[in-house]
């Protein structure tokens, strides 16, 4: 217990620094992944066979290889064919590319869950394809994909721990530095683990609350279920 106190009191700033890096990298990585996800889901449904095939292969490759390998390829592999990134850039790109592969599937199934009649009705009303997409399909799909997307964001926060292997000093990276300095490996890594638990719980709490305000009618999410949060549609009583 003394060791815990020692590590925490002397190295708290380093842990906080690590949490900041984890949060920043995860958010930027998520934004990239979100863009890839929307574009990829659109490509998979598009009439262009080539676009659909490219998006399909992308999803398969990302989902069937470990993220650690993807990080190594981006940071150590790409320089050998002339693309060099700093570890910060590589971290965001790796998170974005890997998260994007999962978000494409989430978004695709979200769009697929919208009843066919919605699209037909939009056609009948004479809405342009852009209006159909942005005013009819996207708002409905967002509601469906919100819980699994939050789940994916949490997975990306946890996955960002792997970025310590390319020397990024996020939570796990800082913990490794501290543990090398103090030889108090176990207390250090347990504090790191607690830092992640704090981050993930704060994020999912915020997401639950945000879900009530972002959507109409409010989205009620029950936490701690399989595959992330699950939706319970609100039912009228009686």
């Amino acid at each position, binding site marked *: 217990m003394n060791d815990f106190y020692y590590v925490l009191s002397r190295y708290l700033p380093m842990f906080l620094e690590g949490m900041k890096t984890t949060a920043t990298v995860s958010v930027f990585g998520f934004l990239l992944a979100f863009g890839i996800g929307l574009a990829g889901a659109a490509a998979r449904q598009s009439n262009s066979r080539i676009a659909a095939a490219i998006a399909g292969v992308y999803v398969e490759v990302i989902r069937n290889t470990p993220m650690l390998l993807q990080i190594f390829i981006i940071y150590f592999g790409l320089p050998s064919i002339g693309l060099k990134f700093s570890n910060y850039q590589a971290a965001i790109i790796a998170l974005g590319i890997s998260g994007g592969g999962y978000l494409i599937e989430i978004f695709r199934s979200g769009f697929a869950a919208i009843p066919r009649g919605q699209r037909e009705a939009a056609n009948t009303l004479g809405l342009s394809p852009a209006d159909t997409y942005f005013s009819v399909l996207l708002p409905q799909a967002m509601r469906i994909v919100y819980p699994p997307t939050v789940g994916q964001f949490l997975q990306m926060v946890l996955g960002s721990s792997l970025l310590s*292997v390319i020397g990024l000093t996020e939570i*796990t990276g800082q913990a490794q530095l501290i543990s090398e300095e103090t030889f108090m490996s176990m207390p250090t890594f347990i504090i790191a683990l607690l830092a992640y638990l704090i981050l993930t719980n704060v994020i999912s709490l915020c997401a639950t609350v945000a879900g009530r305000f972002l959507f109409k009618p409010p989205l009620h999410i029950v936490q701690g279920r399989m595959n992330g949060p699950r939706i319970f549609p609100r039912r009228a009583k009686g």
Partner: protein
Amino acid sequence: MVWAQIWESRVQILVGLEGTVVISAIALVTSTLFGGLVGIFNARGPRALKWFLRIYIEIFRGSPLLAQLLIVYFGSAYLGFDGVTAFMAVVVTLTLYEGAYISEIVRSGLEAVPRGQEEAARTVGLGTFQRLRYVLLPQAIRIIMPALVGQWISLVKDSALSSIVGYSDLIQQGQAIYARIGHPFAVLAVIGVAYFLICSPLTMLARRLDRRRVRT
């Protein structure tokens, strides 16, 4: 030229493949058994136990596998347990981590079996164990199979972290190869193909199971 050099290193890749397959297979069995037990107790156990299991699941699902692995691997030395190899640390960590996810899959599968099934089984006089063994589990397994296979795919991919603590898996061997011959991109691409060959049959299996479930 590059490919010829990689071809000459094929033995190393095969050694790595063996490492990945062995550790994944062992962890797959242990984590499924462990997760299954936890899931059953979490669905049907005494309340105090459920509370305890809930905490275990929240901790292991809310923190990264790498942090857990480092705690087990370095923590065992810190606590004075000598002779904990990288292999043991990885198997233990994967069991606990994937077990937490699998237990949630099993629990939700058990809860998805219609309530009348259990009531009927109770009415015909089956005990708790018999209800589980002959009525609930056979139905739950059909429900959870796609999600379970999906978790196994994650397990194979997560086993890549074993290279960080020095276990000789595909990634570790890949790094050794490009440290010697260079061309990291080509070497890592080959390693990626190896992972793809292990995982994509499982993905196809999961997809087929999912489709079958929708049909019935």
